[in-house]
């Protein structure tokens, strides 16, 4: 597929969302057991748009793509003077599944390629309702195919 800014990502592809430590679902002993729905809530200033990275932007097998995506994310954060917490994680979701989940709320969610110079695989999930807890929780459970800790990626 041609990687054209503004184009929708293919349904068969995946997106990677960074989940800070505070938005990971933990049990009473602070063991990570999943992701809070809050991890998929856009910030008020982001106009219902959620930043993600397009996994298949890079070539290679699953692991190579994920390693490359995460390292590019880290490099971009460093340029902004921000850190990526060791205890944070990366949640990977399928494009079609995410759209299917959001489609229940009839908000017309789109997942589009939106690269920047320092973040070439950057994409955006548009029209995520920030206050729909049921939807956000569903994304955090059924919308994910994998959750990888930052500390596990070299």
């Amino acid at each position, binding site marked *: 597929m041609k990687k054209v800014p503004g184009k929708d990502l293919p349904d068969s592809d995946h997106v990677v969302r960074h989940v800070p430590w505070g938005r990971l679902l933990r049990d009473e002993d602070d063991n990570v057991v999943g992701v809070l729905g809050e991890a998929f809530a856009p910030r*008020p200033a982001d106009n219902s748009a959620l930043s993600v990275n397009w996994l298949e932007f890079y070539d290679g097998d699953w692991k190579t793509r994920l390693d490359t995506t995460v390292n590019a994310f880290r490099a971009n954060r460093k340029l902004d003077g921000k850190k990526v917490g060791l205890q944070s994680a990366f949640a990977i979701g399928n494009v079609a599944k995410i759209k299917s989940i959001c489609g229940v709320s009839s908000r017309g969610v789109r997942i589009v390629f939106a690269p920047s110079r320092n973040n070439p695989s950057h994409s955006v999930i548009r029209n995520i309702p920030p206050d729909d807890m049921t939807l956000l929780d569903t994304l955090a459970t059924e919308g994910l195919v994998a959750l990888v800790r930052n500390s596990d990626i070299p």
Partner: protein
Amino acid sequence: MPANAVVPYSKKIDFAAPVAGHELQSLGAGDFLTGLNDRSLDRECAYSSIASSMFSSVAFGEETNSIERRIAALKSPPAPSSLTYFVQDASIEDRLFDATAAAKILTSQVAMHLESEWRQKLFRQLDSLHDPEEWESGDLPLQQSSFATFLKAICQIKPKKRPGLGLSSGGHLIAAWITKRDRLTIEFLPSDGVRWALSKHHDDEAERFAGQTKVARLVESLAPYQPEFWFSYEKGTGEGSP
């Protein structure tokens, strides 16, 4: 500081103003006076000392009707500025420390409702959420108004099972109770507001429910969804049960 130091209930600590030496002395924390103006470990000792003094007063000198008074006080929590002692351009480390310290002091006002182990675990969870090494730039630390709502909820629900904790980007505390694939998530908002969402699996299908109400009605709003399933360690609870 004497372990049984008694502090009058009327003694309020205004962290917005520099604390005079004689005031700290009366709290038995005079040894930590200089720490308040330093970005150093003395700051932590000062807060711990003051929190301990308040707890000691609860343990030894309070009338029983102070329980209701303290709960009522949570309805009008102190403005965050009065619980935060920092100068302009505080570092993120100091802002995070101040947020957790203020929460711990707020907790001390209802300490009699929380088992000591529960309280200590809560403090560790709050510290973990505010770890500077894990802090997400742009997030707000725990908002005291949200934490006050959380404390009221916990005092009402009295869960045997402790929740995992999280934090929204806006500084709202989030509590989650998990049983296998089922989860109950509650976000604690300012002004006694709560939002909750739960999912329970029956025959591999998830049923989802959500609500928004005031903390005084939280127990009632969760009543149709078998709160004992979430808040207790009863045998047999889990997927598709009871």
